[in-house]
């Protein structure tokens, strides 16, 4: 390192500025993410993921998308894109904003190039007029005996690759932002209950906000034709004991408060009961056939076995279990307002039905960045395919010889036709006026 401190950084830079490397990384991303769709993934199918051969598990192929090496791959891709973009920045900048008329024949595009002869004066006027009429921005330069020019159209198209590449990096940055500063979790709550945001089931990140989510109502609504309309949840945000916001959400219509977004994810039916013991009343919310409720300080459990009435006339089937017994020790029906005595210890009153809403709760400060990246990606691609920059440059020498060429990125076919049209226009107008000299105009050499 001491002898030649630049060489290995240079090598690294060179490695990362090559598109071969970029394509290899893209290919590797495609390949590994493809394997991830074939092998069962732990998050989705834990049992099947356990069953695949050990080697896949060790290498992380049963949770590809969250492995360090997969992230490293994407990270390297970003480095690659950044290095590429930096490397090419000044070139692109100069091409776009500081085009220079050609100094000699070598500066004129080689692949599409032609020579036209005519009167110096005329050729220059025609060339200028025709190019300007076609929307080119033309810069001319006199140098001694000759006049040279460069003309551009759609010059912002030079930025297409730059924009696409940076957009991809922005997109990934947004995803990383979400990973570090966001959280994701779920909550299942009955109408009438309040859940502290800190108590939701987190699957990612940590919750820093301190507010409560009160579910005012949870409904499963149907359309007149019997199809499901949507699930609706009305909720209030409780901060320091006060309601600071409220709103209704449904599938595809989330609700956001202070960067935390609530999505309607599922719905379940349940009941609201109260239990009395020595004058104290506590609310109980249970899902139909869901997890049973354990009465405090007992080994008794309350289970809802069915809901039989209508929302107007709710009726439930309940069962009481004792720990260790697989058969209920007590069961019965309750309609709204009715009470029953549980083993002489509790009095349980049925209050009514209560919808349970399943919410996905998320905070992702990176999401706007992701959309920004997506938008730029699209913009870059559109520029790349529909806003091809066109460059025409040439030198007109004193003796009436105009050499001009056209370039457009790397695409030849279409540009060729455009070039042909341009030439015939310059020649055409020329030849009409100088009908006697048409033979001169036949002097073409097309290098393709």
């Amino acid at each position, binding site marked *: 390192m001491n002898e030649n401190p630049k060489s290995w950084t240079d090598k690294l830079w060179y490695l990362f500025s090559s598109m071969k490397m970029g394509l290899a990384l893209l290919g590797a991303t495609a390949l590994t993410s493809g394997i991830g*769709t074939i092998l069962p993934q732990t998050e989705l199918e834990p049992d099947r993921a356990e069953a695949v051969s050990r080697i896949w598990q060790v290498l992380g192929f049963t949770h590809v998308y969250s492995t360090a090496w997969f992230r490293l791959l994407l990270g390297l891709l970003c480095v690659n894109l950044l290095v590429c973009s930096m490397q090419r920045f000044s070139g692109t900048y100069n091409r776009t904003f500081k085009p220079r008329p050609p100094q000699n024949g070598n500066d004129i595009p080689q692949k599409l190039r032609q020579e036209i002869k005519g009167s110096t004066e005329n050729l220059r006027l025609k060339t200028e007029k025709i190019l300007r009429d076609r929307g080119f921005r033309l810069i001319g330069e006199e140098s001694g005996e000759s006049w040279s020019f460069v003309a551009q159209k759609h010059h912002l198209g030079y930025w297409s690759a730059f924009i696409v590449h940076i957009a991809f990096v922005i997109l990934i940055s947004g995803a990383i932002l979400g990973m570090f500063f966001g959280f994701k979790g779920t909550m299942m709550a009955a109408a009438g209950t309040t859940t502290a945001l800190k108590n939701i089931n987190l699957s990612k990140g940590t919750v820093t906000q301190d507010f409560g989510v009160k579910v005012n109502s949870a409904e499963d609504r149907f359309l007149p034709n019997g199809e499901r309309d949507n*699930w609706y949840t009305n909720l209030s945000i409780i901060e320091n004991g006060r309601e600071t916001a409220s709103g209704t959400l449904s599938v595809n219509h989330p609700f956001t408060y202070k960067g935390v977004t609530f999505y309607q*994810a599922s719905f379940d039916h349940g009941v609201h009961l109260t239990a009395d013991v020595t004058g104290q009343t506590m609310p109980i919310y249970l899902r139909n056939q869901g997890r049973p409720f354990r009465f405090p300080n007992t080994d008794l459990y309350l289970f809802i076995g069915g809901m039989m009435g209508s929302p107007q006339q709710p009726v439930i089937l309940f069962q009481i279990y004792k720990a260790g017994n697989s058969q209920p020790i007590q069961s019965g029906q309750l309609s709204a307002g009715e009470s029953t005595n549980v083993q002489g210890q509790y009095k349980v009153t049925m209050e009514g039905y209560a919808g349970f809403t399943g919410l996905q709760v998320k905070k992702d400060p990176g999401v706007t960045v*992701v959309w920004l990246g997506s938008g730029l990606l*699209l913009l870059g691609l559109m520029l790349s*395919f529909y806003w091809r920059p066109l460059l025409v440059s040439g030198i007109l020498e004193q003796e009436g010889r105009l050499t001009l060429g056209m370039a457009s990125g790397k695409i030849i076919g279409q540009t060729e036709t455009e070039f042909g049209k341009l030439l015939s226009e310059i020649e055409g107008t020329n030849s009409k006026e100088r009908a006697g000299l048409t033979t001169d105009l036949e002097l073409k050499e097309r290098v393709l």
Partner: protein
Amino acid sequence: MNQGLQGLEISMFYLTLVAYFLSMVLYWVWLGVKSNILGKFATALTIIGFAGNTVVLVARTVIAQRLPLSNGYEFILTFCWGILAVYLFAEFRYKLRALGSFVMPIPFLLLVFIVMKMGPDERVAQAIPPALKSQWLTFHVVTAMLSYGAFAISFGLGLMYLLKTRQGVTNQKDGLISRFPAAEILDDLAYKVIGFALPLLTLVIITGAIWADYAWGTYWSWDPKETWSLITWIIYTGYVHARLMYGWKGKRAAWMAVLGFVAVIFTFFGVNYLLPGLHSYA
């Protein structure tokens, strides 16, 4: 009214199927026989099939009171419509009738798949879950239809290129291949078509992500369908780069166009029918 419409939809489905079949066969025969009339017939049948396909989709829209974009049956018909729309455009714009021989088998086979694999209950208009009621989904599927349709065309062009440039065939004066346009034209067109389809595919993925974010709060969850659309995207991105940077044209580019469409088909079908995945909605 619905009864009548349903009848119309079903009969139009079979009309479309038959028209696609006959036009495919006619395109083949035309390649060999070089009778102009036959070629015109083939095109006419394609148009009839396309019209039938359109009627099926419109009838379904009226019956279901929503766009036909929500189950496998509807997706396939929409996909076929996209292929045909892009194909007919290409045939007229570029006078490319020979392309029909390579493209028409795709919609035909897709419809055959419906007939063979889908029971009546999979074909009727179903109630859709709340998650599918989204403008973004509509946008998502419409862009997918056009993008996949265009990729199908580039696939056809790639095949034609490969046939045209097979060893020793290039200069053949007669025979089927002579009806193909020049190899460079095929190559250029394939690039153009991919240039149309790739930004669209990007839009498909982005609108899908926006929709998922609204519906589930996750714009990307690496489910197999998403992942395969990304793989498809990477393949075509590779195509564009290889062409721009290394001047990959011709054979290698044609192979990539073919491979890319295989990935499209896998994204569309394989994920649903071959992988153990869970993309719950088609």
